[in-house]
């Protein structure tokens, strides 16, 4: 559980730096296969993970670098993974959509929209069966709200009061599909009403609000009170992926949301406490951390072709 604003800010900055640098690296051809940025959604990732204990678990999505960093994954093996190197957290086998680090409780990103929901619910079932006291946070985009897996798993979790928090990051788009074009609900959190669990909305451009809402849900989950659906209202400030034609929204709309930038908002509050110079120091440190991660990635060897067929089975 993270209480100090400075750490929250630092983690958000790390995500921003990581995903910004990635864009350069994708465009320069160092990273293949494309990638999804979490820019504008840092407060959701950091706020949720700030409410978790270190040995709590999460599942993540195709847009998962923020979740990974917030949960404590080291950016060096993350960047090496994007470079497809042996030093990557998945030894270069997974890439951007499959970042996993079981050592810090990240059970994996996922390239299939909604597929993390079953995995997270099963992990929560395991905690409940083993009475581990751990909680699972399951991230997914609002696009995944319309996958059948949501109903099946959330229904089960509600029925058995599993220790899980479902976090829907409503960044307002699933590729080109605006959230309002995807359901008939005025309020996405109402999806919970049909599944028998509480549903809450939170301003996810505000990291503290996210953390506080999650903390309540985590407490309920850990105490045997069952799951909660949190709809974290945020905005995807960049394209769906690097290279998105972005023909489906106006510059004005984006500008409106940029004014809510969760990092800028946090910086404002934090500056009042620690001053601008200290903030600039944090910014520089996080920038340097990403420089270092890129250097680490570049220095890491590519996997040997001869090992390609290894590791299909445990």
């Amino acid at each position, binding site marked *: 559980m993270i209480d100090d604003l400075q750490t929250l800010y630092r983690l958000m900055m790390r995500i921003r730096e990581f995903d910004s640098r990635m864009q350069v690296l994708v465009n320069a051809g160092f990273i293949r296969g494309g990638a999804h940025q979490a820019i504008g959604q840092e407060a959701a990732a950091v706020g949720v993970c700030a409410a978790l204990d270190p040995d709590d678990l999460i599942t993540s999505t195709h847009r998962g670098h923020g979740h990974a960093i917030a949960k404590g994954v080291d950016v060096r093996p993350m960047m090496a993974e994007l470079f497809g190197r042996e030093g990557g957290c998945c030894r270069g086998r997974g890439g951007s959509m499959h970042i996993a680090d079981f050592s810090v409780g990240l059970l994996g990103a996922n390239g299939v929209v909604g597929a993390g929901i079953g995995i997270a619910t099963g992990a929560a079932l395991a905690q409940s069966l083993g009475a581990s006291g751990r909680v699972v946070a399951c991230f997914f985009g609002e696009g995944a709200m319309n996958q059948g897996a949501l109903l099946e798993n959330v229904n089960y979790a509600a029925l058995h009061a599993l220790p899980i928090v479902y976090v829907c990051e409503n960044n307002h788009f699933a590729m080109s599909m605006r959230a309002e074009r995807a359901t008939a609900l005025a309020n996405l959190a109402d999806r919970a009403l049909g599944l028998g669990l509480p549903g809450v909305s939170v301003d996810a451009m505000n990291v503290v609000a996210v953390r506080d809402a999650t903390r309540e849900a985590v407490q309920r989950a850990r105490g045997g009170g069952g799951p909660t659906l949190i709809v974290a209202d945020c905005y995807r400030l960049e394209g769906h992926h690097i290279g998105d034609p972005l023909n489906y929204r106006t510059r004005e709309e984006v500008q409106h949301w940029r004014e809510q930038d969760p990092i800028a908002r946090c910086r404002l509050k934090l500056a009042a406490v620690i001053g601008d110079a200290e903030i600039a120091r944090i910014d520089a440190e996080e920038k340097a951390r990403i420089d270092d991660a890129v250097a680490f990635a570049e220095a890491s060897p590519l996997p040997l072709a001869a090992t390609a067929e290894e590791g299909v089975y*445990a």
Partner: protein
Amino acid sequence: MIGQTAPVGARTATYAAALNEALREEMQRDPRVFCIGEDIAVWGGGGVYGVTKGLVEEFGVGRVRDTPISEEAIVGMSVGAAAAGLRPVAEIMYSDFLALAMDPLVNQAAKMHYMFGGQASVPMVVRSNSGAPGGKAAQHSQSLEAWFMHVPGLKVVTPATPFDAKGLLKSSIRDPNPVIFLEHKRLYQTKGEVPEIEYLVPLGRADIKRIGRDVTIVSNQTMVLKALEAADDLSLSGIEAEIVDVRTLKPVDMETILESVRKTSRLIVAHEANVFAGWGAEIVARVAEVGFELLDAPMMRVGAKDSPIPYSEPLEMAILPDKDALVAAARAVVAY
């Protein structure tokens, strides 16, 4: 190996009871093992085919979990529970409904170990059953094992006898990988020797269920039994068929198959699934590739015709393969 059959005088049990014993023993042995599926606890005292009978009484509702009708979640949650350290044994009531759970099985369970660079393993079993029980029509009668064979990262097991059913299920539960374990509706009530002492049957090993010199018949599940009957018939006219029960389809034991073909120079592959793009194709193709010189006659496949399974009995019988088709095929390749 023939030697794996229990000694004369050993105890017999049904295929369903043998599976039930495997579950019970593994649940006793390893507290991480639990069962999850529809109507496995309350219904009839333990599952539509009795495989989970008595388990909820012994292990409680925590470890023998009746679920809502949510196949994708049954398998999806099993993946997550396995990744988090448990050993789920999921049941899908009819294998036709695996069509509802392909994503967690194929895109998640099968890939996690490799895709995450070895840090995760997914030790889970999905039990279901293949085959036409008779009169259950197109949506409750399919044999879909070929699909799973084509998925790297999965193991595929299809036992024919009570002995193998028990030993293979125990091995599957202990395996650190996702295993699709396909039982057969027409086998649940068949009886066979099942020793009282504990044993395992390893995955990836075929079993010669009858020794012969004239033609090799590779088959699984019900078709093993039909092949044994066919072999009796053929024997009367001097044709000795060797019956290889493939048992595990992935990994498949090509060595045992090729060794048999080396002896007989003739191969028939028989399964209840439709022939077209069925698992028999892989066996025939492999032998054509690496055993081309061993053959004295074209290989033949025996299986269902390429049709949904019809309801009406004469139609169903016409679509499904039977002993006579095996006898005819064996005669044809021997006469070649």
